């Protein structure tokens, strides 16, 4: 090192030190932006799930949506008729695939009375013999209210209970629907929909579109629905809050329950990226097989408890479409799953689990 006085060197070193600080700092800023911490306006899975909690409170250990439900188990018996359209093993002729499922009602309150919403849901996990899985979450309505995650978030915000009344502000809800004409088809359905007395008599729609790939490599845009093979009961109108689980138990005590899996094939040009729009009713359908539900278990101890019914967990032969709701469902379900499993694990910073479920009926 030359023994020159330091002042001469200082400007050069200053630049070097600035660079040494600036490179990692720039990386850290970019990391913060990509990770959402420095992008407060971006809709993230966390903000979406936080909104569910803002609307209905935190119920530790429970799913943040469709919190009230019951586990079921059974199998899917393939008819072989979907095999030309999808190479998924589950559709192979004569194939029987074990299923762990869950019936539920939408909403974040695990104690909500079954009559509080007209919608029921069915979630299924098919485990193929090759170890690949097909997970699906379906609702008992043919169209979804909104087409995008952003609109869904705005709908949740509009439905957040007013602290003064404990109920959503009707003005905000009306303003949301006025600003979102794509909700018209859902609202028309909701006008006549009544809470059903049974899970067994409902149809369940995939809502989102998916893409089948056949053994010939051909791709087919599809939607599917589960069509019930059980008849309506003409019994007395149910009165207790949990009549759906009671009905399911009674029906299963007499034998298994069945649904036909009906796959609808899109025509070119049918929307695959918009769950608010049903496809024309003349589209060809395929009877892919029969879902047989044999048993039910309570959701807090049954085999469905630890399953995240992420609709993008798919076997080879079924792929997500360009529907923007699908990645949002995947991301938000993962966040909800981490919250409830963290509560189950009693990790620090998580809401503590109730020692025993309190049957308080919170609206």
């Amino acid at each position, binding site marked *: 090192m030359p023994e020159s006085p330091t002042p001469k060197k200082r400007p050069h070193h200053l630049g*070097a030190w600035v660079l040494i600080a600036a490179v990692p700092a720039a990386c850290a800023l970019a990391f913060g932006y990509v990770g959402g911490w420095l992008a407060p306006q971006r809709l993230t899975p966390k903000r979406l799930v936080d909104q569910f909690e803002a609307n209905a409170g935190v119920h530790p250990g429970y799913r943040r949506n469709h919190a009230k439900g019951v586990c079921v188990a059974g199998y899917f018996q393939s008819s072989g008729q979907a095999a030309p359209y999808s190479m998924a093993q589950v559709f192979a002729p004569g194939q029987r695939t074990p299923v762990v499922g869950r019936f539920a009602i939408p909403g974040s309150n695990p104690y909500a009375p079954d009559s509080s919403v007209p919608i029921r849901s069915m979630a299924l996990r098919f485990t193929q013999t090759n170890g690949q899985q097909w997970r699906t979450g379906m609702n008992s309505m043919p169209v979804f209210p909104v087409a995008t995650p952003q609109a869904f978030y705005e709908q949740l915000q509009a439905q957040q209970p007013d602290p003064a009344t404990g109920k959503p502000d009707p003005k905000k809800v009306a303003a949301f629907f006025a600003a979102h004409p794509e909700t018209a088809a859902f609202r028309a359905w909701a006008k006549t929909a009544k809470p059903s007395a049974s899970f067994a008599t409902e149809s369940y729609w995939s809502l989102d579109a998916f893409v089948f790939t056949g053994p010939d490599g051909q791709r087919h845009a599809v939607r599917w629905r589960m069509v019930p093979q059980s008849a309506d009961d003409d019994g007395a109108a149910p009165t207790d809050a949990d009549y759906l689980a009671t009905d399911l138990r009674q029906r299963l005590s007499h034998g298994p329950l069945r649904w036909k899996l009906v796959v609808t094939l899109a025509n070119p040009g049918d929307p695959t990226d918009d769950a608010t729009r049903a496809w024309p009713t003349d589209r060809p359908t395929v009877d892919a097989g029969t879902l047989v539900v044999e048993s039910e278990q309570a959701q807090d101890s049954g085999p469905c408890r630890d*399953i995240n019914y992420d609709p993008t967990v798919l076997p080879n032969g079924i792929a997500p479409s360009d529907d923007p709701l699908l*990645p949002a469902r995947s991301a938000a379900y993962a966040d909800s799953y981490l919250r409830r499993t*963290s509560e189950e*694990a009693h990790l620090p910073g998580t809401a503590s689990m109730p020692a025993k479920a309190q049957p308080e009926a919170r609206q």
Partner: protein
Amino acid sequence: MKDTTGLFALPARVLHWLMAAMILAMLFIGVGMVASVSERHAWLLRIHKPLGIAILLLAVVRLAVRLHYPPPPLPADLPMPQKLAAHASHWLLYALMIAMPLVGWAMLSAGGYPVMLGDSLRLPAIFPANPIAFAVLRHLHTWLAMLLFLTVLAHMAAALYHGLIRRDGVLASMVGRRRGA
């Protein structure tokens, strides 16, 4: 094998720069995908898993290369605390390169997810399905990623410090220029 050039061996240099790009990309993909509800979430997730396994395999190769070709010694006049920091951070980087993919793999196994690297390539579960283990491993995956990111930042700053302030050939030994050239 005795080093005579003052450089890292060619395989070590190739692996270093290749993995530097992969790991930095992986860290951004990871935090980006869990903070997104858009299509980005889906395609980043599709890259994340096979890229993680590729990093795991390369890290094992790199560990073997490191043991086979000892790295050039640090400058003799480097103060002892800096030498210790250099060695400790390098072994921490190796440990994290190997631990991160394994924790991710174990976490998906514990969550009951099929570990799919593509449309049909599935890895076996390396941990029994268990929600409590899932939660612990999932959080561990995040915290180790943050530790890895901070270690990478410190590593970058240290490399620049050697190259710009000390000019002692440490940065050059990985860039590939001979000491003093």
